[in-house]
């Protein structure tokens, strides 16, 4: 580890500098204990980031106020960037203006991601939110999954209709399927274009019903069941 700290004239690691006046060794004992406890919490929190076992989940419940409160638990953050699953693609939340024909693809407007600038962190925030929305739409088997998925969709519908005052009557979650390496050299021009309609699926569609300040959504289609069967096909 290179030159050892305190290797010149301070062999025992006795503190110096900003705590020279106090009983630093007693402090260090307490700090050592805190470091060990903190280290255990961090190891548990990080080890449980991906597919935690029931034991890890239970331990995390106990450590929750510390590791979640101080954001030491990444809580399923996809640090791996891609596993080539159904979720690891680009998503779009689109809305249909009042009076438009829903079969007219050009009529649908993109609500999220709102920024075309890929460098902006705002876009990353919106991408993360859409991923969460897509993940919730896919969760069909867990108890209460459908109502949880509807909650977030309803919040986004409220944002469109009430906060932004957009004349949205429907919204849909669209998945931008990824082009395979083989498709890049395909003789079919549509397959070669990653932005062709061939590469877009509608995973969820809902109508927005507004009653005063209340917003309700009526789900019309869900590709969640189909999605669950497609694992490694980005």
């Amino acid at each position: 580890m290179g030159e050892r700290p305190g290797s010149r004239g301070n062999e025992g690691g006795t503190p110096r500098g900003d705590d020279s006046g106090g009983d630093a060794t007693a402090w260090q004992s307490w700090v050592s204990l805190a470091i060990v406890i903190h280290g255990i919490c961090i190891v548990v929190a990080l080890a449980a980031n991906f597919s935690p076992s029931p034991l890890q989940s239970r331990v995390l419940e106990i450590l929750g106020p510390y590791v979640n409160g101080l954001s030491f638990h990444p809580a399923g953050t996809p640090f791996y960037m891609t596993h080539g699953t159904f979720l690891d693609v680009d998503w779009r939340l689109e809305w249909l203006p009042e009076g438009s024909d829903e079969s007219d693809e050009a009529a649908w407007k993109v609500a999220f991601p709102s920024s075309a600038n890929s460098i902006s962190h705002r876009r990353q925030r919106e991408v993360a939110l859409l991923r969460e929305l897509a993940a919730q739409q896919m969760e069909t088997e867990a108890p209460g999954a459908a109502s949880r998925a509807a909650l977030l969709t309803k919040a986004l519908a409220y944002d469109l209709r009430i906060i932004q005052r957009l004349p949205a009557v429907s919204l849909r979650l669209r998945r931008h399927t990824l082009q395979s390496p083989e498709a890049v050299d395909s003789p079919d021009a549509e397959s070669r274009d990653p932005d062709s309609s061939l590469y877009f699926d509608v995973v969820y569609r809902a109508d927005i019903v507004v009653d005063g300040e209340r917003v309700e959504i009526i789900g019309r289609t869900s590709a969640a069941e189909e999605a669950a069967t497609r694992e490694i096909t980005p």
Partner: protein
Amino acid sequence: MTGVQPSGGTCQSRPVGWNQFWFAPSDSTSLAVIRIGCGILVLGYLLSYGSDAPRWLANTASVVPTSTVRELMARSWAEFSIFDYCSSPAAVWTVHGAALLAALAMTLGVATRVSTAVTWLLLLSYLHRVPFANGLAEPVLAMLLAYLVIEPGARSLSLDRWWVLKRGGRPGDPIGWTATVATRLIQLHLCALVLMTVTNRLAGEPWWSGTAVWWLIARTETRLIDLTGLGSLPQYYLVNLWTHAVVAIELLGVVLLWLPRFRPGTQIALGVIWFSLALLTGQLLWLGIMLLGLVAFVPPTVLSRLLGRAAVGSGRAQPA
């Protein structure tokens, strides 16, 4: 961490190696550099809300209201967000403005310890307000700030230090054991994070089969550069190599960062690999934070030389 001091007593019963590793006084210049970098990144994070801050952060009239977050997640009392109590845009702007000021003060080194703690606490409020919108960058940023609260490097590269010198005073010694504790915590946490990342990667088939980088290249809406030309052979071998290199360098990096002979090369390799991933994913804030984490492995004397000033406590203390 093997030897034990012969005599008894609280301190003496701890292994000598443990004491040297955690408590030998060291220079806080690295932490000052990390603090300045973190401050700039926090400012970037806050400014990314733009004029939409109330739309994201207000407790009711927002993209995801607080009530929805509470219904979707079992939040503990500790996952506190001051924005849960901000219902009007004016209240959101007040807190947002305070956060910007605190981050600016932290960057410049004004009331450094206090401004760093305030910035950290306010950042946690942002992270807890809409947890679904947190990406790769936010947890790492919160981690760095937490450790900077222990030692923000206020006694070097700060306006606090400049002010004391201007008034003819004697600035405090930038060398202390708190700098060592903070640096060690950043180093170990970063390594644990990289280890977690690479093991998470290996839980997916594309990182074994060499296709993962292709699935990042193919995301046309998030990538910063178009490399679809690599889709056909023989260029596709480069995609495989790139994927395997990410896994190999991250796996080896966790170990090699601790070996002085290999450290500079490992830091460069990790930096290059993360930069390449940021180009494919648009995760620039994440890249900046990961690179700042690597600064904790740069000896303060080297940093002082790079900054063009005399090394503080040169040759005495380097936690690496």
